């Protein structure tokens, strides 16, 4: 291993910026965030980078390392041995300064999602197998790397039309909760823009918590939306059953 790492860090703000090169002494097991801290403490005290826990629990330090959306605290410098490591802010969100971006849009979206409506008061009787399915989504640390990589949000100005993968997982978490009585299928089909997603799985690939967002949240939700809005036979049966216009209860199979 060389004794020194070379980093190119994007420095700038709303008005623009450029990559600045820094050299940092190498240390065993160093992560990109360590290198940035070294720069901050010794070379550029005003280098802006968001971080909290430095243990991949809080999801504050999302950025793009050599173009890939990564958590800075979990990305090892020795993975890029011999290369210059380029660190840039997430592209999907407006930059505030250096590596810090304005992610406030995500917090607005979060408000649109109805909370759990328990069908019976706690304590719940619930088996582990039911907990397992939703607990996967509970691992989310809201680093927003999935939102960053999602091409709907990134390339297609989709922020008006699609909540993004993070919030599909959030909706799935409530929607698949065995004790939930709220119906979020109309929300998914309309404002949340579920079908803006074309299941290309970048969100799953970048997720540092290894949540299988596409396979376990988005696709199952798409199937539920299909049950309600696309499946002609189910729609017909529902009409015949006299449930026209009445939102189906999430706990009961839609076609019956």
């Amino acid at each position, binding site marked *: 291993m060389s004794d020194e790492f070379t980093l190119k860090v994007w420095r700038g*703000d709303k008005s623009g910026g450029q990559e600045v090169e820094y050299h940092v002494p190498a*240390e*065993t*097991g*160093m*992560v990109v965030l*360590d290198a940035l801290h070294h720069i*901050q*403490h*010794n070379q550029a*005290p*005003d*280098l*802006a980078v*968001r*971080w*909290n*826990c*430095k*243990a*991949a*629990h*809080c*999801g*504050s330090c999302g950025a793009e390392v050599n173009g890939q959306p990564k958590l800075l605290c*979990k990305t*090892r410098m020795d993975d890029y041995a011999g290369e210059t490591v380029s660190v840039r802010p997430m592209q999907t969100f407006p930059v*505030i*300064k*250096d590596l810090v971006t*304005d*992610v*406030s849009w995500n*917090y607005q979206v*979060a*408000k649109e*999602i109805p*909370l*759990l409506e*328990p069908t019976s*008061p*706690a*304590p*719940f*009787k*619930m*088996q*582990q197998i*039911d*907990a397992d399915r*939703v*607990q996967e989504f*509970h*691992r*989310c*640390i*809201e680093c927003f790397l999935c939102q960053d990589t999602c091409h709907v949000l990134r390339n297609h100005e989709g922020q008006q039309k699609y909540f993004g993968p993070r919030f599909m997982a959030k909706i799935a*978490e*409530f929607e698949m*909760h065995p004790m939930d009585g709220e119906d979020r299928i109309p929300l998914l089909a309309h404002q949340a823009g579920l079908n803006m997603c074309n299941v290309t799985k970048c969100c799953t690939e970048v997720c540092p918590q290894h949540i299988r967002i596409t396979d376990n949240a988005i696709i199952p939700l798409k199937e539920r939306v299909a049950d309600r809005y696309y499946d002609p036979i189910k729609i017909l049966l529902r009409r015949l059953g006299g449930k026209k216009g009445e939102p189906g209860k999430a706990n009961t199979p839609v076609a019956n």
Partner: protein
Amino acid sequence: MAHETYETHEYDIIVIGAGGSGLRAAVEASQVPGLKVAVITKSLLGKAHTVMAEGGVAASFGNLDAPDGWETHFYDTMRSGHFINNYRMAEIFAKEAPDRVLELESWGAVFDRTQEGRIMQRPFGAHSFRRLCHIGDHTGLELIRTMQYKAIHSGIDVFQEVTMTKLLVHNGRVAGAFGYFREDGRFVLFRARAVVLATGGWGKIFKVTSNSWESTGDGAALAFRAGANLMDMEMVQFHPTGMVWPPGVRGILVTEGVRGEGGLLYNSEGERFMQKYDPERMELSSRDVVARSIFKEAQAGRGTPHGGAWLDISHKGPEYVKAKLPGMYEQFLTLADLDITKERFEVAPTCHYTMGGLRVDPETCATNLPGLFAAGEVACGLHGANRLGGNSLSDLLVFGRRAGMGASEYVNGGDGFAPIDDSELQQEMDRVLEPFHREDGVNPYHVHERLQEIMTNHAGIMRSGPVLEEGLNKLLELKEEARNMGINGSRIYNPGWHAVFDVENMILLCEGIIRSALERKESRGAHWRTDFPDELPEWQKINFVESYDEGKIRIRTEPVNEMPENLAKLFTYGKAPGLAKQAGGKES
């Protein structure tokens, strides 16, 4: 200097800090119709240090061990706190914790389940029964995420990335808080009729710490300067198991859940050394004991290559470890290239929690400063000399709620907004901008590093009078130097600037810690003095309370409240009430 402006917001109650207790307080206050509530946080919502809690939330459901109950939880808490806890806080806490956990469940938290479909509970250090409700090893994440979503759906306004630099007081009553937005450095005044502090601890005073950068004790320092009292400042908890290698990860927490799930500790000679220190509870002894034991082993030359102990969970099998401790598995794999399902790993004590903090009323969480409330790690009294694992999360919920209730009652019964003195704010803005005019000043990061060095060498896990004295002198020197902290760059998201205030706050609290540590001439819980190695009964009767007076810290003793008879009785069986009941039941 140009005339600076600030924007003004008015709320009935502001909550400073958006961790578990802050959000719980805000949610509680927002239930009162007509009250305007805001939460102010210095980082993003949902990132607070609460996410770092791993093992679980302690509540005596007795889902697995039926004899458990609030009495036993109370007993365990008092006993681990070495009886300088506020008994009333511990009582309220033990009684209310289960309800608070169930509340979480109905707001969307999904805990691991038992065979019968109830909340699963795991064993933890010094808990008499299996008591920690958990979700894998990311219980704190679950708690904060649940509270976060509950809060944003409760009509609470959230101000993110705001640094508070001053708590405003008018005629001995809280009037609001003043600070700036990190995003662009613009100043902001929050006028409030009551303020709830939920700013957490100050674990960042040590180099090896499991705490996130936020734990700089801002709330405690702000309140202390404004006239609130601090208590038990000498009590700083070291978690026995932090990561050791590689250097960059030193201090990152290895959850107590590893031992709860059956992990064993060995020294370099392959001996389960806990046998010597606590043969009864072994690895699941209280944190102060285990931390000290690891430290002593390393001192005696039986440490691992990087000065810790071996922790081994590999005998539980890969499937089990991955299911119950997925975060730990991943953490070691990515950060240390080590597979904990196959190998043992090194652990060493790491600064984890500050038991001391603002002295509060057990029922309402009110401090001595009218209109100021405190809950969570920033408050003091529940944990005494040593906190039990899992008690902090239930602490957040129980006293977060009580602080929210206390504040809304205070507001409903109290007066309107206290007036604000504009010249005071002008002065404060000048002070806050001062570091920009000292471009050749001292680098705040370096001051922080030196502060950590002083605290580690002089007031760490092992303390003694002369070493503490020397540390105090060094600290006072550093304090002088720190007056000259300077930075460059703009006001837009400038971490160097933010660090100046963090460091100022920490220096103040460190002084409080060392002074208090010098006063307590015994060893009790987390406070271990080699010159006074024994726990002495007469010191069990007092707490050290600190107040701030014209730049000086004054320290006085206050008697520990005595337990009423019905509670005192619980300690007469010779074992935990639940266990005694169990034994008694078997006999009859």
